[in-house]
């Protein structure tokens, strides 16, 4: 079981994603805007963070940048999940410090695959 923080403002997506992740046996923390996401990331030590990019208060790119700056979250893998599917969007995401980018609609098996890869890579270091 892995604790995953999901920062997302769309309730349907929160519902869908948390249900699917929980079905895979993960613990899912939910933050509904960027600021809250940052707070939870620091306070509750998730093993991995999924972040939507178009977030209220602080957007996903900025959240990622701040996560990377903060020492307690700098090593936590971050996967951007975004409906901003344009190449420039994904580039901005990588530039901000995301470890991966998956366009919505999320190909769930692929997401699980990426999560495994990133966590394995992290546990090795």
């Amino acid at each position, binding site marked *: 079981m892995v604790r995953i923080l999901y920062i997302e403002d769309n309730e*349907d*997506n929160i*519902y869908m994603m948390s249900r699917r992740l929980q079905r895979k046996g993960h613990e899912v923390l939910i933050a509904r805007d960027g600021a809250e996401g940052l707070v939870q990331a620091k306070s509750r030590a998730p093993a991995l963070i999924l972040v939507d990019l178009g977030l209220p208060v602080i957007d996903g790119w900025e959240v990622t940048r701040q996560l990377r700056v903060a020492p307690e979250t700098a090593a936590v893998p971050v996967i951007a999940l975004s*409906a*901003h*599917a344009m190449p420039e969007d994904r*580039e901005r995401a990588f530039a901000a410090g995301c470890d991966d980018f998956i366009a919505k609609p999320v190909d769930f098996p692929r997401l699980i695959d990426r999560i495994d890869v990133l966590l394995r890579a992290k546990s090795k270091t």
Partner: protein
Amino acid sequence: MARLNIRTRIILLSSALLIVILGTNIYLTRKLANNSATLAEVADLIGVIESANGARVAFGEFRYWLTDLAVSMLTLSERNAAEARSRMEHLLHQVAAKKPDRIVSVRAELAQFQKFATDAVEEYTADRRVMGNSLLAQARRHSAVVDQLLGSIVTELTSEAAAARDRAVADVATATRITQGIAVAVVFMAALLTFFLLRSITLPLRRLVVAIDGLNAGNVAVPIPAAGHDEIGAMARTLAMFRDTLTERDRLTAEREHERKTLAAAIATISDGFVLYDADDRIVACNERVREIYPQRADLFRPGTSFREILEAAVVRSVPDLKGQTPKEWIEERLRQHSAPYSVAEHSYRNDLWVRVTQRKTHDGGTVFVYTDITELKRRQIELEQAREGAEAANRTKSRFLANMSHELRTPLNAIIGIAEILHEEAQEERNETVSEPVGRIVRAGKHLLMLINDILDLSKIEAGKLDLYPEEIDVAALIGELTKTTQPMADKNNNKLTIDCPADIGVMQADSTRVRQVLLNLLSNACKFTEKGEIRFIARREADRSAKWLVFTVADNGIGMTEEQLGRLFQEFSQADSSTTRKYGGTGLGLAISQHLCRAMGGEITAKSAPGRGAVFTVRMPDQSLRGTPRRDEMAAVAADFVMHNVPIGGMQQRAERDG
């Protein structure tokens, strides 16, 4: 004659006359000398005649005194006879100079006479009268001979003297005649020579005068006499030179005039305003057009007006757009520009008049101005600019709209597909067919919608020229293997056999692997979809031609195939045979259109061959070095131009080190 100069000619003429006169003189002198010799001879002969006559007289006296002596025997007579005899001898001696032979005869006879006479005297002295008489008679016969001889000598000499005199007279007469003849001849010759000499001078001179008169009258065609070697020849040459200069000048003048007229016609004809200023910046020439362009200043565009006057009038009458300058500054700036060797400037005036002023310095410090009315051009430019801005704005709006649409569609679609998948999974786990079947349909429809959104985004990126390509080295054999693995399940679905034909040493190619994969996968999945229980062959080959090395991928099936008409619109958007095809076979109808555009963007091409019921063969030709180094912008441009309705700059093809995964 013309070979000699005039001085030589006159000298020659005078010399000839002098020689003739000298010759005549010599001749006359010699004749005179001859004559005087003849006359001396005559005088000589007359002396001899006198001597002969004296000798005759002396002989008469001698005979007398001898005869007398014979009679008288006187000593006086004897003395007288001796004296006469010696006188006679003296005279005979003189005559002997002329007539020696006759004088010898005379002397012989005289000796005979003297002997007989002396003998007679002796006889008479001895008083042998008869004897004396006989001897005397004999003496008388000899004396008669002497007399006769002397007489004939006188007669001969006289006739000789007369002949000599006659000869002298005749000589004088001949000489006189000849001299007269010569004189006449000399006069004639002198006249003739003088005539020719004068003619040789005056004739060419007259011709020269005619030529000069002709030239003076402006007739350069007048004939100039052929140049001789004399002074007139020199004059003729000078005149010919003068004529040639005149002709050349006339020719040049005519040429210049012709050029001027041609230029004037050209200046009048050109559709632009034309003004030529001299080095003092005063108008030399201008055409009507410039007055049409600047009607307010039409009266000023005439020869003599200065550039500054034109500018000052421009400020007041044509009212140019001063671009924030004062009229004085504007004029000064124009004057500064004016000193540059070449300049082009555009000026706008009241009434929306736009004029492009091109000026260029001429070699002699003047300036050529060409005024082009570009009002219409400017109007179009502005329209075009506005249209371009409009198009760009529309395109930006469209891109933004697409991005937004994509985002807005994806967010709910994410939930739809995700939740449908949860339900589908749960229904399957519970083996609840009544739920899992319809939910499966929702999942498939959702995924189809997602495909459509992705394809539409791809197409819109291609249209906007914003398709990014990331060339990298691709191991072709590995790519084929991977594609086969992906395709195999699709082939199996319709019970198709998938065969691969790829040489092991096919090597690598330089291309955007994602896009190459996308293109080939599209063709392979199409083949699998439209073929049942058939065979799909996937072939890779290398080819080379003059321009490049190519990789050729062929996807051949023996499925349903296509009609000629379907083949024709195969690469157009939404061009599946009909809507029922979409329903039956799935797909968005955008795949081939996108594949073709991607392929072209990488410098390649997709071609298709097919017939209904006989399968289809799709061939992809791609350069093995597509887009190595700098992106091939021209190909992108071609793709975009081919496809795009908007006039939008093609961008976004920059190389990126980072690859999307």
